[in-house]
């Protein structure tokens, strides 16, 4: 008879394995990065062989892919979409703009660092990153999932106050439903 801890380990392994190999991507096509997604998905680079697949709505999605700069107006929608996704969920920041603002580092209307507003698991740098780097980013995410380190939703829940403060700094007229369980 295996004890509970071991059986839990096995269940975790199976769950993580399937999570890792079945990533439904909600590609939030902001900025110029959206054009790289078709290239990644179609025949030349074929992300589907890793189980990466497009999802139509945040309810079905596992990965939120922010492809490029985020205007403050868009950030509001991104937060909404992120909160509508179901746990476990992952976020990939895509392109320099999500990392440090990129060429929009001094724009009055785009944010500079995505992880200040929602937790990010993996950043893919480049302007724009090519499909190879996108896939390598996904593989990095898969590794994190297999090791159980991708705890995006948990981080958000635990540091909700901090994230909210940052978000409200940008979005002055805060009229969003509360994020509750």
């Amino acid at each position: 008879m295996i004890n509970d801890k071991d059986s839990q380990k096995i269940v975790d392994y199976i769950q993580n394995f399937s999570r890792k190999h079945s990533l439904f991507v909600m590609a939030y096509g902001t900025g110029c990065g959206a054009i790289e997604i078709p290239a990644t998905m179609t025949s030349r680079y074929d992300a589907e062989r890793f189980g990466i697949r497009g999802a139509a709505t945040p309810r079905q999605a596992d990965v939120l892919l922010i492809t490029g700069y985020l205007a403050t107006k868009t950030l509001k929608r991104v937060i909404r979409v992120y909160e509508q996704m179901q746990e476990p969920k992952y976020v990939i920041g895509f392109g320099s703009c999500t990392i440090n603002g990129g060429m929009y580092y001094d724009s009055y209307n785009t944010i500079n660092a995505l992880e200040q507003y929602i937790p990010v698991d993996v950043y893919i740098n480049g302007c724009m990153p090519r499909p190879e780097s996108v896939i390598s980013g996904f593989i990095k995410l898969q590794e994190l999932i297999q090791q159980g380190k991708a705890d995006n939703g948990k981080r958000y829940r635990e540091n909700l106050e901090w994230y909210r403060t940052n978000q409200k700094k940008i979005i002055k007229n805060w009229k969003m439903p509360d994020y509750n369980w």
Partner: protein
Amino acid sequence: MEDLGLKIFGAILTTIMAFAVGMTYGGIVRKLTARVQNRFGPPFYQNFLDLVKLQSKKTNIAHGFMGHTAPVWIIIASITVLMFIPILNGNLWFPNLNFHGDLIFILYMMVFGSLGMALGAGQTGNPNSAIGVTRGLSMMVGYEIPFVLALVALMVQYHTTSIQDLMQIQHESGTWLIFSNPFAFLAALFASLGMFRYSPFDIVGAPAELASGPMSEFGGKYLGTMMTGGSIFSFIKLTLYVDLFLGGAGNPDHIGIWATLAGIGVLLIKTFTLYMVPVFYGWVSPRYRTEQAIRYFWGWPTALGIIGLIWAVY
């Protein structure tokens, strides 16, 4: 009592098999589609991974009672229809609740799931869901006409409404119904294009345009359960077609373990061949609008169905 136990065991076995086969077929189709598009494609067991992942989601969103029970309706419809469709001809390992499998009942029971799904999608309040549902129901009126024409043709031709009897007739005469009433088969085949909702008839859940239509508010365990129901359903449809037109599978004279396995093999070959028809058709077709799809079904498929019915009567 022993009989009942065997029946329950058989029912569970049938369900598991239908589920596994349906999921695997879906995976194989994904792989084949990828190969046709010059991609490598996901492994054939990808659908199982998707299902496990969806079921192991930690949080879920329920939009009220109907939204919560929508997947239940789908599972009810699929399993109940499965219970009334003979899988193998006269085999003890796949006993059904009603061995005759009445066609009218099955026609109506197949709608049960769609109705529940539609109600669940309606309660979510997402406009995309409602639009998808109206498209799906409208299209159903389209493809049911040739399908029913074909089924009525068969029923009238052989004076039976039971699938089991139709299988027995094919077994005894040695000819498949596809040869004795080819028009009915063609009509039913066209109807199956709409039933499987591959392109060109996939406007119901167009991902980019409607955000996957009726499913747009379902995720996690709900989506996973719906996937299970859908997989069982696709197996049911294929088995129904094989039973009706392609002679079914299995041999009532030999019911040993090897004969059963051979029967399952034959069934798999036949169903897979049939499954390839809508898939092949879908690969080379763009998408129809709803009214175009309805008109399509009311055109040649219905004409073929009428010819088949006249063929059957005279």
